[in-house]
């Protein structure tokens, strides 16, 4: 990303306002002919005069509405109509704090991309981050504060809130601030100041933080073992051997983009110039359900949740034996895993000590303490487990949360302010909690939607979308980000730090308006001047060395490098102490469900997470990477369990827990690789705000609604969460499953999951039991042995005759390389493509009818069988074939080949015969079956003006982001410089946290794609058809036992 494309100016003021002015400003004066140079005769003069007077009358009669017709009085310097302006910012869709660049056009943000300078996300951005842009243009966002559900003004709300706080403080009542993880130094300081002020006024104050997806047990375990409750920063980029016990670190765990970027850091696969491997040498995942991370592992072992502790204990004991110490764990129940496997794991970890990493997603403190023990014994602390610069991405403490909930239920809390979380929807016992919130004297929610918590609180003081406000973040010490707004707030909203300042005890009691609330911008700048600027490191040159240049640089770059170890409140003061082995206790037994019962695993889904993505239609329609189900959650059952219950995909089952009267009905998804005694259900569904999606999609007589009127999308599983033992638990045991005999067809985007054809039909086919070669996997040993050298698949290419003259490319020949070994299937590219190319959302019914519109899809094929089942992901997009089968069959030449190798679809020439789609062997063409709704004018603001919105009846497909190609070509031409390799980045390439996608010029032998196209792993899908695709794939690499492990 060239620096100069970004701007440090905040466009929020004058330029941002333009976004709401829809339609072109009608020019006031008509075209009045000017005096002719040749001189004017009488007739011409009279004509002109008559026309001028007429035009003046006509113009005078038309009074343009002011709010739609005010042009810029003076053209802002940065804004050139039709040219995008980029601003560095940061994503606040989750607390991971990835860096973003925001593309704005004419004052409105239209695309989020990863910031390549950001040290954590390294240019990647996940699906949730990509989609959060759509949340900006959500017409259901609150536009003004609410008092008991009615719109009010800020002054009135502030007056009443302050008055209530006064009363509470006066009688020494309890004030509680409940937030999600806040990583911003200013935010944290503001929260502490707010509470401190009121504490000084006599209130009993506390700040409680929790995360819907809690990692509280890790903090607690570190408190126990290291004397300091921190969440370490896991350095997957340094790990050669990764063993994960149920931590979905590539998908949803803590900071997936950062982890993915680290995980996919290329490392030498062996010695002597062997190829680099874009992943750790060995990754073993032991988990109950099939997670995104598990499908990417070299070896994946189904492990029931109740057995995790025992398994880790056994592993720790084996590692300790290799370390020559005795842990004295005493008598243990037999290991729930194969003994040989445990030995192998211990060997691998031990051999890679210092460069290995053990993680666990468990919320059991004992288990996490054992994980700490393992990492300590392996010497990973300080290497792959960074406790010095711990992560602030999950600061929730569930023990405090439990106390708060207890207080709330007892009615002991007088005032509560909730920000950034939706406890009524996210936590178990939501209804009780809602009632308790209602009983408090003051309850304030800062939700930007009418969430369940907002409905339970008296005041709702909406926060702006993160693109509308100044923010700062420091997700990991040393990575400080100041994020600028990119648009003026669309509603009358106010950020948390301004609200806290407005309600501060020092302001309270003064007359309204006499003391202005310090703006977020001022607060952040003041805080940074005082606390962040002194921590600056010399690595970045700040021209004049003053604060302003530091600040400008930080705003421009989107990230400031500061010393991690000073200033932050978890900094030097109490650094983690040495390891206390005595704090670790073995888990000597496993708990298993009773006969006929199952364990329940509640998990977050990519994109939706704990429900924060639920109100986003892009994310609802994004298929879960593993189940490929959209629009709702499912009960995942292993094939054996499904057989046992006599159910198949789409059958509704009733789930009930022992001792719980509630029964949830969910459709079954038969999930290979899942533990046989586990039922997995995704969290984050059943949110009240999702009832709006009932009308999504085209309306016609046979249409079935996405959700029934008033019903939410999916089933809310959060009542089954448990806050127990000081941690939010995502697992329950004693689940009974019964078939209801009814069905609800699943909205899946992939109906057949394997590369092998069905066995019944495969018997009739030569090599019918062999997987089709569309998505290839190599054993690491085979790769190192050079078994794939010589490009066997290229054999015979020269013998394939063609009737037509070959295309000749004198200039560019665009192409793409997709590295399957790097791709994790995280689906960020899918949403990125959707945002960039105005791909419509079609709704559940259309997905059931197999008509989703994504230009880029991720094919997921299961490989292996039984316990060894794994998956391979293959991003599939238009392959831009040289011998494109689609091009020959279109009767009207609506799809043609460009001189640069692109297969172009001409929308306004297309008559919609669909012959091209039939003849496409990759089935990547998408047809506009209907006119997809674009009635929501606010939501239409997200549309990319560079890409046409397709009408019904035309075919569409991936264009390799031709608008980006053209833009960069024009820039290069204007600058009279050759187009640099890498200057053009397609939307999918840009977002990929794993750097799996590379776009470039195949015609330039020095380009990255040209070199990768001759990689020993390179192949083209369906090469044998001689369609000559311009997209090549690099085979996946796994280090599996069956392929002779390295």
């Amino acid at each position, binding site marked *: 990303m060239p620096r100069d494309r970004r701007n440090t100016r905040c466009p929020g003021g004058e330029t941002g306002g333009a976004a709401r002015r829809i339609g072109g400003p009608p020019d006031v004066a008509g075209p009045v002919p000017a005096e002719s140079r040749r001189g004017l005769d009488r007739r011409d003069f009279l004509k002109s005069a008559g026309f001028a007077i007429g035009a003046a009358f006509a113009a005078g009669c038309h009074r343009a509405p002011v709010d739609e017709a005010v042009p810029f009085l003076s053209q802002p310097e940065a804004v050139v109509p039709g040219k995008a302006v980029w601003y560095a910012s940061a994503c606040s869709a989750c607390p991971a704090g990835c860096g973003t660049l925001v593309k704005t056009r004419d004052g409105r943000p239209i695309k989020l991309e990863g910031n390549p300078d950001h040290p954590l996300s390294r240019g990647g951005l996940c699906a949730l981050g990509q989609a959060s842009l759509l949340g900006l243009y959500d017409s259901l966002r609150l536009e003004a504060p609410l008092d008991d559900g009615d719109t009010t003004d800020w002054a009135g709300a502030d007056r009443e809130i302050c008055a209530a706080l006064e009363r509470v403080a006066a009688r020494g009542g309890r004030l509680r601030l409940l937030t999600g993880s806040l990583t911003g130094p200013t935010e944290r300081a503001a929260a502490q100041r707010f509470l401190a002020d009121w504490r000084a006024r006599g209130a009993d104050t506390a700040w409680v933080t929790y995360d819907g997806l809690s990692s509280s047990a890790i903090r607690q375990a570190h408190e126990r073992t290291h004397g300091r409750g921190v969440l370490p920063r896991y350095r997957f980029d340094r790990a050669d051997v990764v063993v994960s016990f149920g931590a979905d670190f590539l998908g949803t765990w803590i900071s997936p983009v950062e982890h993915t970027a680290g995980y996919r850091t290329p490392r030498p696969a062996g010695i002597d110039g062997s190829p680099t491997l874009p992943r750790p040498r060995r990754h073993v995942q032991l988990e109950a359900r099939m997670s995104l991370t598990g499908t990417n592992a070299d070896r994946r072992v189904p492990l029931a949740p109740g057995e995790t502790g025992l398994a880790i204990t056994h592993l720790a004991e084996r590692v300790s034996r290799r370390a020559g110490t005795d842990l004295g764990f005493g008598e243990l129940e037999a290991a729930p895993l194969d003994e040989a496997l445990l030995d192998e794991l211990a060997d691998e970890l031990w051999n890679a000590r210092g460069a290995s990493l053990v993680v666990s997603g468990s919320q059991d403190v004992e288990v996490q303490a054992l994980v700490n023990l393992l990492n300590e014994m392996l010497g990973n602390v300080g290497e792959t487990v960074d406790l010095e610069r711990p992560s602030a991405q999950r600061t929730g403490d569930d023990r405090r949360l439990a106390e708060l909930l207890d207080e709330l239920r007892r009615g002991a809390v007088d005032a509560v302010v909730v920000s950034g979380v939706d406890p009524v929807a996210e936590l178990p016992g939501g209804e009780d909690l809602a009632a308790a919130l209602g009983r408090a004297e003051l309850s304030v929610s800062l939700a930007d939607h009418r969430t369940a918590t907002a409905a339970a609180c008296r005041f709702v003081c909406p926060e702006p979308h993160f693109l509308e406000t100044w923010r700062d973040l420091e997700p990991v010490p040393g990575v400080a980000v100041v994020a600028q707004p990119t648009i003026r707030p669309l509603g009358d909203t106010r950020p948390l730090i301004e609200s806290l300042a407005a309600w501060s005890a020092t302001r309270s009691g003064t007359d309204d308006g006499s003391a202005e609330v310090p703006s977020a911008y001022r607060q952040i700048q003041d805080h940074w001047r005082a606390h962040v600027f002194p921590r600056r490191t010399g690595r970045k040159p700040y021209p004049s060395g003053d604060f302003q240049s530091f600040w400008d640089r930080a705003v421009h770059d989107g990230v400031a490098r500061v010393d991690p170890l000073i200033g932050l409140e978890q900094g030097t003061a109490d650094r983690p102490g040495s390891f206390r082995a005595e704090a670790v206790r073995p888990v000597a037994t496993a708990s298993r469900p009773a006969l006929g019962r199952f364990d329940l695993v509640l998990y977050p889904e990519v994109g939706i997470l704990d429900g924060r993505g639920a109100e986003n239609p892009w994310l609802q329609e994004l298929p879960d990477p593993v189940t490929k189900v959209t629009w709702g959650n499912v009960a995942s059952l292993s094939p054996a369990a499904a057989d046992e219950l006599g159910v198949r995909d789409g059958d509704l089952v009733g789930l009930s827990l022992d001792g719980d009267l509630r029964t949830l009905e969910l459709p079954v998804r038969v999930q290979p690789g899942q533990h046989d005694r586990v039922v997995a259900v995704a969290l984050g569904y059943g949110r009240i705000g999702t009832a709006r999606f009932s009308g999504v999609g085209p309306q016609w007589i046979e249409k079935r609604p996405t959700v029934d009127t008033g019903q939410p999308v999916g089933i809310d599983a959060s009542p089954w969460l448990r806050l127990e033992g000081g941690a939010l638990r995502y697992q329950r045991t004693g689940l009974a499953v019964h078939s209801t005999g009814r069905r609800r067809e699943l909205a899946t985007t992939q109906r*057949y999951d394997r590369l092998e054809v069905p066995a019944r039909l495969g018997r009739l086919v030569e090599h*019918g039991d062999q997987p089709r070669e569309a998505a290839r996997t190599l054993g690491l040993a085979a790769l190192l042995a050079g078994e794939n050298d010589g490009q066997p698949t290229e054999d015979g290419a020269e013998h394939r005759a063609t009737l037509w003259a070959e295309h000749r490319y004198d200039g560019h020949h665009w192409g793409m390389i997709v590295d399957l070994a790097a791709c994790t299937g995280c689906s960020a590219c899918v949403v990125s493509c959707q945002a960039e190319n105005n791909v419509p959302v079609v709704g559940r019914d259309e997905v059931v009818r197999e008509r989703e519109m994504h230009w880029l899809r991720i094919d997921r094929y299961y490989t292996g069988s039984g316990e060894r089942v794994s998956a391979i992901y293959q991003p599939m997009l238009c392959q831009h074939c040289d011998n494109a089968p689609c091009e020959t069959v279109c009767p009207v030449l609506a799809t043609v080949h460009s001189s640069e190798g692109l297969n172009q679809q001409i929308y306004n020439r297309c008559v919609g015969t669909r012959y091209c789609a039939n003849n496409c062997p990759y089935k990547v063409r998408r047809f506009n079956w209907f006119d997809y709704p674009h009635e929501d004018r606010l939501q239409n603001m997200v549309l990319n003006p560079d890409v046409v919105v397709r009408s019904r009846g035309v075919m569409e497909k991936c264009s390799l982001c031709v608008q980006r190609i053209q833009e960069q070509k024009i820039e290069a031409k204007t600058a009279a410089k050759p187009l640099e390799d890498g200057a053009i980045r397609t939307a999918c390439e840009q977002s990929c946290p794993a750097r799996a996608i590379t776009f470039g010029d195949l015609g330039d032998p020095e380009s990255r794609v040209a070199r990768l196209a001759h990689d020993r792993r390179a192949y083209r899908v369906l090469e044998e058809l001689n369609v000559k695709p311009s997209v090549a794939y690099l085979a996946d690499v796994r280090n599996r036992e069956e392929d002779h492990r390295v």
Partner: protein
Amino acid sequence: MYDAALTPRGDRGASGSTWVPEPERPPESGEPRDETIRRPLIAGDKTPGQVTDDVARPMAGRPTALWWMAFFASGGVMTTGVVAVAYQIATGIGTWGLNKTVGWAFDITNFVFWVGIGHAGTLISAVLFLLRQRWRTSVNRSAEAMTLIAVLCAALFPLIHMGRPWLAFWVVPYPNPRGSLWVNFRSPLLWDVFAISTYFTLSAVFWYIGLVPDLATLRDRAADRARGLRKKLLGFFSLGWDGSLRTWNRYEKVYLLLAGLATPLVLSVHSIVSFDFATSILPGWHTTIFPPYFVAGAIFSGMAMVLTLMLIARKTMRLEDYITLRHVDAMTKLVLLTSSIVGLAYGTELFIAAWSDNPFEQFTFANRLFGPLGWGYWIMVACNVLIPQLFWFRRLRRNLPLVFAVSILINVGMWFERFVIIVASLERDFLPSSWASYRPTSIELATLAGTFGLFFTAFLVFCRVLPVIAMAEVKGVLSYGRRAGAAADSGVAPETAREPAEPDTVPFPTPETVPTAVAAGGSSFEEVQT
């Protein structure tokens, strides 16, 4: 114009074309070979005048209750289809059950099905004409009408299956102001446009030319009854036919030439339709045997549809004397032949797939036989290959209820053949991730039904307003001349005697007319000599 009542032109024309005296034989006696040559093709010992009366009768009176019932039923079904199509065009192709993988299903299935039906007409008219199969005279008119209607039904689908049918004219290469935009001559869909329009045009011309003598007959019959629009129209469309020898001569020449032109089209149309599939790269479509296979299938289904219609018309319009068991027998033999060709094609496809060493091809056929739509394949095989084998037996060939049932089953089977080829190949192709299924919507079902409604409605109207049997041609194959000598001992003689004027006016072939007759169509001399 002169008064034609005294000397019906049709009769004169008939005698001029292929009238041949044949010796009378008692029915159901003698060897089959003799039968086909010697037995009269038209039963009932008709005189030419009777033929005119029989054929013109349904057009003269008021429609029967049965006709009205049939008309309203089929019209109702057609209306449903019209509503469905209008809704689909207004709302979007999404109202069909297609999806990202299956881009064609009912639409192109119906298209190929109706084009196939449309084959029998030209085959019977032109090919059998050239092959001197004189039994065709009883059925060619209605078969040609059926062709036209079926091609109309077929042509509907390429139009309405488009995403933006209002832009359908873009597939026509006409000079336009869109710069270099032109049609793609590499696309089989474009060849379809040419093939179908050519076929329709020629079929319509051929049909119309064949109608002219009959229209003249009707015009002349109408002369003494009414002088309304009908007469004017008949007068216009009979092109001033005067029944002169010269007119006949030219007529016969044009007819022969058109038959010669139409014959290659029988082969070309369905060959080109099959190119839609054969030139693609989809396993199951990309098959070089498709052109002959599709042509045979088209003739097969067309013959079956002719049989269906003829058996109904024969019964309801009392045309048993014209469409005799012999006609049915001949057509069922053709059905049997084409069924066997189609069966061979099915077998060849499987053989080629098995020997192809191509796993995609093999899988496609495994899937076609045993996949989710395998039941369609077995319906197809049962209806198209197994059931027509009944026609090896002469008795079954003459069992009209059975023939009727089989003819319907064949059309069911042929519809499924196209459905199986199109959908079962599309639904599971190269990348298993995109494998999909297909289920029709109500709109598609209504559209399919609607084309049948259109077909039958149009056919019913045809039966009312035009002669369903080519009178002029039928008169050429009457046994009338032979009867003249032996009328005394014939049981039908008294009936003949009812209209004494007409037989007397029929001239015996003159030396001038005979060469024309030979050239035009008949094997009359050979037969006379036997």
